[in-house]
Every structure is written in C-alpha cells, then in structure tokens.
C-alpha cells in the first residue's frame, strides 16, 4: 500500500497503490486526508460509512466525496480506513480524532474529486489509480 504525489500545477495528483481493492480504497482515503490535514492519530473516534455505485470508479469517487462530507460536518480527521468492497458496494470503518486547529492546519481544503483520467488499473502486484483532488 502506498501513495505518492505526482506533478500537477493546478491541483493535487496522487498515484495510489494497493494489493487489493480494499487496500487501494483505504490508501486513497489516507492520501486525501494527508492533503487536507497532515499527520493524524487514532484517538478513539470511530465512524462507519456505506456507499454504493454502479461501477468501481464511481464507487471510489462517491466514497472519497462521502469522506469529504463526513470530515467537514463532523469535525473529525481520519487516519485509518478499514474498507470492505463487495461488488460495487462498500462499507468502511474510519478511525481518527477530533479536528484540532493547532495540529491539523498544515494542509488545504479538498473541494472535490475529479473524474478526469480516473481509472482503476489491475497490475501484476495489485491495483493502481491516479486521482486528481481539486484544491
């Protein structure tokens, strides 16, 4: 599991890898939260989300969009994402901590997830996807 930031002048482009789809989605969540808040710890806040879509790419976008919604309205920062995908349904347990301006202000607001160039690719070692976060 890994994510790396690639060159993109206007927004944030991340290449995310995971051995399984569950790991890929978990890592995509971690990548997005690293852009928004910087470091985060598990301090006992737990939340469950469920998302359903018509294909995997849309599922990824809806899942990340749901995370944006939850973090903003519930003032929580998540650092671990236990994702379980069945077909095009996803459930995830998110763990993290309450938002603390003193420790979580190193990042920037992600306004949305772009559909542009988003394609989940199966490779020998697992899955890879490149995601543009609009900032």
């Amino acid at each position, binding site marked *: 599991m890994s994510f790396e930031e690639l*060159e993109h*002048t206007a927004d944030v482009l991340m290449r995310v890898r995971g051995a399984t789809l569950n790991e890929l989605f978990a890592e995509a969540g971690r990548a997005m939260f690293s852009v928004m808040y910087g470091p985060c710890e598990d301090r006992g806040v737990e939340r469950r989300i469920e998302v359903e879509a018509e294909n995997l790419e849309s599922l990824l976008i809806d899942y990340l969009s749901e995370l944006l919604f939850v973090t*903003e*309205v519930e003032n929580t920062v998540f650092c671990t994402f236990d994702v379980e995908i069945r077909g095009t349904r996803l459930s995830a347990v998110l763990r993290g901590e309450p938002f603390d*301006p003193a420790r979580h202000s190193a990042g920037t607001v992600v306004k949305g997830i772009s*559909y542009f160039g988003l394609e989940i690719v199966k490779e020998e070692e697992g899955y890879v996807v490149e995601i543009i976060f*609009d*900032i």
Partner: protein
Amino acid sequence: MLTGINKVGDLEWEVPIGYVPDMRVPGRFFLSRTLAETLEEGAVRQLANVATLPGIVKHSLAMPDIHWGYGFPIGGVAAFDMTEGVISPGGVGFDINCGVRLITTPLTEADLARRKRDLVERLFDAVPTGVGGKSTMRISNKDLSAIMVDGARWAVEHGLGTEADLVRCEGEGAMPGADPDAVSAKARQRGVPQLGTLGAGNHFLEVQVAREIVDPEAAKVFGIAEGQVCFMVHCGSRGLGHQVATDYLRTLEGAHSKYGIRLPDRQLACAPVDSPEGRAYYGGMVSAANYAWANRQVIMHEARKVFAQLFGIEYDEMRLIYDVAHNVAKFERHDVDGVSTEVCVHRKGATRAFGPGAEGVPHEYAAVGQPVIIPGSMGTSSYLLHGTTAAMQKTWGSTCHGAGRVLSRSKAKKEVHGKELRERLAGEGILVRAHSDAALAEEAPDVYKPSGEVVRVVHEAGLSDIVARLEPLGVIKG
C-alpha cells in the same frame, strides 16, 4: 507554441476543428509568447474537448491564465444555445462563484504605520480561515434557504452591510433562478456552519494599497486614488458549493447518455440547458452562487468593523467598488451574428468584463464599463480593470481571473520554506498571517505565473483595460 495551433492575431491563437475528433467549433485563446512557454498541451486538449459539446456557439475560448484543469480548462469560457446547448458543472468548477471584492478605505499607508501588525491580527481573529474554519454566526435552515435566494441582500437585510453595497455587486449580489429544493441536505449541512468563512487554498483577505493609477478617469469613476488603503476578499461558496458540484456531476453523468451526448471526458458531464437535469443543476448552482455572495458580504462586514474600531473611521467610509464572480454559468444576452440572443455562458476561472453601456453594469459605472478585479497571488500585485466593448464582441464579455499556477504543490513544498517565505515577505513590508507556515509554501508567489503578464495580455488584447495596480500590505491567508 505547440503544433497544430494557428496564430490569428498578435495575442490570439486558434485551435482548428479536428485538433480533437468531433469539434463543432474552433477553439480560441489569448496568450503572449512569454506565457506560451508554460502552456500545457493538456489545457489545449481540454479547450478542444469543450468545442465538442452540443450547442456551443462561435468558439471554445480561454483567457491568458489558461491552464490544465478538469473538464473545462481553467480560464475557459464557452456559451451555449438555450435550446440546443448544454450546461455542465465541469464548466463552473467545484467552487461555485469563487470571486473577489475590493473595498476602499479613507486611510493611507502612513495611517497604518505601527498598527499594521495589530490590524492583521485582528482581521485574522475576526474572519475564520483555513481547513476546518467554522463561523461564529448561528443561522437556521430557513435562513439558509433565504440566503440561497437573496444572496448578499440577505446579509444587508440582517444589518451586515448597506443598500449601496448591493448595487456594486455583479448581478446586485444574487442571481435569479435559485432553487433551494435542488440543493441536497448534505450541501445544506455543510453550508450552515460556514457562512462568513474564508476557506483555504488561494483564498485570502488582503490589506492593500493602490500603488499605481493607470487610468485616472476610470479610477475617479470607481472612486479609487493613488496611495489609498483598500482591502480585498477572495473566496467562494465553501462546502455548500463543493457539495452541489459533487452531487450534480453525479446526476449529470447519468443524464448525458439519455440525451445522446458523447463525452470525450467524464468531467464534462452535462445535460441540455432546457432539460429537468439541466434546470435542476442551474437552480442548485445559482443557490450556491448566492450563498457565496452572502459569504463575501459577511466577511467584508467583519473586516469593516475591525477597520472602524482600530482607526476610528466610519463604516460608510469603506466603499465597496465591486464584487465579481469567476466560477459560474449565467444566462446572458449577447450579440450573435447581429442578433441579441440569450445564451448560457460558462466562466471557469474567468471574470465577466462587460463594457461601457452593457446591460447589468451599475449605472454609476456605465460610461466606463464594469470593474474587473484580478487578485494577485500572495505577496504580488492585484489589479483593478474595467470591461470593454472588445470583450463583448470577442469573449462574451469575459477576461482573465488570476495568475495561474506554474509550479506544482509538491515542487513548491520542496523549493519554498513557509517560515522563510513569511520572513522574506515581512522584510518587504507584507505581513502574512495563516494557521500554519506549511500551508504558506503552497501558495508562495513563485508558484504562480506573474499576474502582471496575464493582465498585460488582456489589456493589450483589449479584453479589459487596467485602471489601477494594488500592492499587498497584509495577508490573511485562507
């Protein structure tokens, strides 16, 4: 310049039909040789992709701050026929009605003198900023509905401004056609706690000085003089707008196949302007745009209170020059082959720049054209311009919106150190306040194209004329 593009004027370039398959009209953009050095092929391809959409009129356009976005390029402008054409969230962006307003004060730089640090700190305390910034205002869901319909007027009616402010906003601070029922419960939940907050990224509240007056006649009409201290607000519709965009990208993605529209890019999801899906997006987008006008009105009000208290000046002495939107789609009347025709104009990172006498320009500015406000990046000049007749003829009355990045965020973080940047700017007399130094590096002046060059190109291309150049003195960074 990239291959396959034709020069059609000193600063004007054409992307011919065929640059990508299925283009219905040519693309056209405005750029100097200097700016062409950083033009991305991806941005031109996006401009060409927009030209494939049904009902596009005349050209797919881009301003000199064109760069690679998603869906439309940033700096993209396109008008669509009201019956044959489409409306697309990808032509507006996630930050619906991101925009700028400029306010003058009766103060000079000397008046700020030793109190500049105090001013910046008080402004920082008065206006919530950054990731997680929440409002101190308590508004109800009913208030939110009213805000989405009335925009800046809601704020003025609640004591957060004056009637005169409304006249000096694009569309008087609200667009008609809002449909709060087209805004999801999620978007509402995000909107309630964020009214009057700046957000993050390149958004700012800046104390500036009018350093140079380029067009004294127009400056007089706009009420700005050399040496005058001003402040500028740059922000948008916050989480509410982001959610509306997210929701409708999804809805319209399902709709385009229903209407037989072939898309070269999923981010160009769209529906006919005159369809249930198109109308719903428009109603939701207008609601978010109106929220943004109320948002900037509230922030201006808070900043005025700080200035009034600190310098003993009157609230009414701080005059709003104008407020412009640079991410929006609007129904406007334009000349199409000699006939006044209503079209749906998308501006994604582009500013309306209506010329003298155009409908919608405030009466007091009618002889000059509307004020156009181009924010600089942190530490660099911002500009006040006015709209022109040439813009009405060439770009649906549109011009650039800002500088446009040249350096990615990841490179910026490697090359620029936030604390050093803050200290360097302080050395130049620019005090910067943010929640963290780390966030500063990403928005360093070095990561943007020189705003002066972008503005020079629109000026020389005749799309808007420079009135004044403003320099920053203090920056509250979002």
